[in-house]
């Protein structure tokens, strides 16, 4: 089983390829069909953001392990990065609500809700890196 894959996103085909990679990996790892769909949707949204706002970037998907007190848990980690314009006001884009009003209702807060962990780093004119993880229960 592959434990990692990396997809370049510069058009809608890239979005689909990233989705496919995420679905395959999450299925292999044993996620149920709803969680598979959620992980895929999160990847789709992140890839679409790259395509729409930064023109190009990449989506890395990897299987991760966390050794905690109660045993080892496995999960899937998405890293979406681009060298695009960056986000000037992170606080604003992370505010829940109707930034996402029409359309799929996703946006970054939507992605955050689909996953368990979420982190965003962005610098204007340097680019954005978003990391999101979902753990197997």
């Amino acid at each position, binding site marked *: 089983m592959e434990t990692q894959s990396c997809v370049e996103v510069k058009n809608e085909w890239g979005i689909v390829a990233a989705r496919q990679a995420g679905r395959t990996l999450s299925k292999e790892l044993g996620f149920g*069909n709803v969680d598979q769909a959620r992980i895929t949707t999160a990847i789709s949204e992140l890839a679409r953001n790259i395509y729409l706002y930064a023109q190009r970037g990449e989506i890395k998907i990897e299987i991760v392990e966390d050794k905690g007190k109660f045993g080892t848990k496995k999960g899937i980690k998405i890293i979406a990065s681009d060298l695009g314009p960056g986000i000037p006001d992170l606080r604003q884009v992370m505010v829940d609500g109707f930034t*996402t009003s029409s359309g799929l209702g996703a946006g970054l*807060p*939507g992605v955050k809700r689909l996953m368990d962990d979420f982190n965003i780093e962005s610098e204007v004119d340097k680019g954005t890196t978003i990391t999101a993880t979902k753990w197997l229960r």
Partner: protein
Amino acid sequence: MNYTDNNIETSYKKILESYLNTGSEHVLYEAQQFTRTLLEHKTSPEELVSLHRSIMDQLYPELPDDIQASFDFLLEAMMGYGMAYREHQILRDRQQELEAEIDVAAKMQQTLLPREDVSVQGLDIGIVSVPAKKMSGDYYHYVKDQFGSIGLAIADIIGKGVPAALCMSMIKYAMDSLPEQQLNPSALLENLNRVVEQNVDDSMFVTMMYGYYNIQAHEFTYSGAGHEPGFFYHAKNDSFEDLSAKGLVLGVSKKATYQEYVKQLDIGDMVILLTDGVTECRMGEEFLEREEIVDLIRKSMHLKAQELAENVYRELSKLQDFTLRDDLTLIILRRQV
């Protein structure tokens, strides 16, 4: 009927199976009750589709591949609704918080209005003031002077809700800090106009009518700043006329001046002050005519002023389907003796 996370699947299977066997309405009723439980558990709609699919798999192990795949597809298509559903929950929490906040603010705002009921010898007074939303942009105020006469203000901040409420609190502090000429309508409006002009955003205006009722002479002296005309009722010939006053809206020009008008009241005569929330009551596409307001007043005119005001409000509220488009204030003064 109480479902736990564990037996949600069992319950759904039982209900679905029972429906497939009987097709009865009773089971569909049960299904809707079951959905209540899912919603309480914050189960997403795509989870419902997934649940449905897995139960169908159990009930029909021979389910054709295409049918199974069609459920997968439906689940995928339902994802967007799942996201909207989760957004809804967040939105609802935030809204609940916002509403709670505005409740507190509205309570604070109520303390800006006069606390005691007005009671003036020889006058029957009724006041109703209802915000369209929780916070009001209408304002009224009265103060009794040493002779037992009263000064009475009614104002409407153009705009509603929170900004209007902030502006209203400013008007209140401004009126409090005005010197003693409080009872002289034109001077009072001129003073207030300067305060509003200086302190309030250019996009915000205030209309006001201020009147002084002299309890000895039974004279009502008033001035107005672009405010919706009230009514004057002549008991002798049982007729209503408009009570209007020329004058610029507060806050537009530093140098506005205001004219004073005087009305003599005989026994049974009424002064009726109101905001445009009363007259611009809308039913569907149509506005109520001022004559229709008069008709509403006539209908309850035999009652005490307070009941009269409350009846008119109730009728207006019903005409508008219990949804006020604007804050509504109605003040009635009737000379009793």
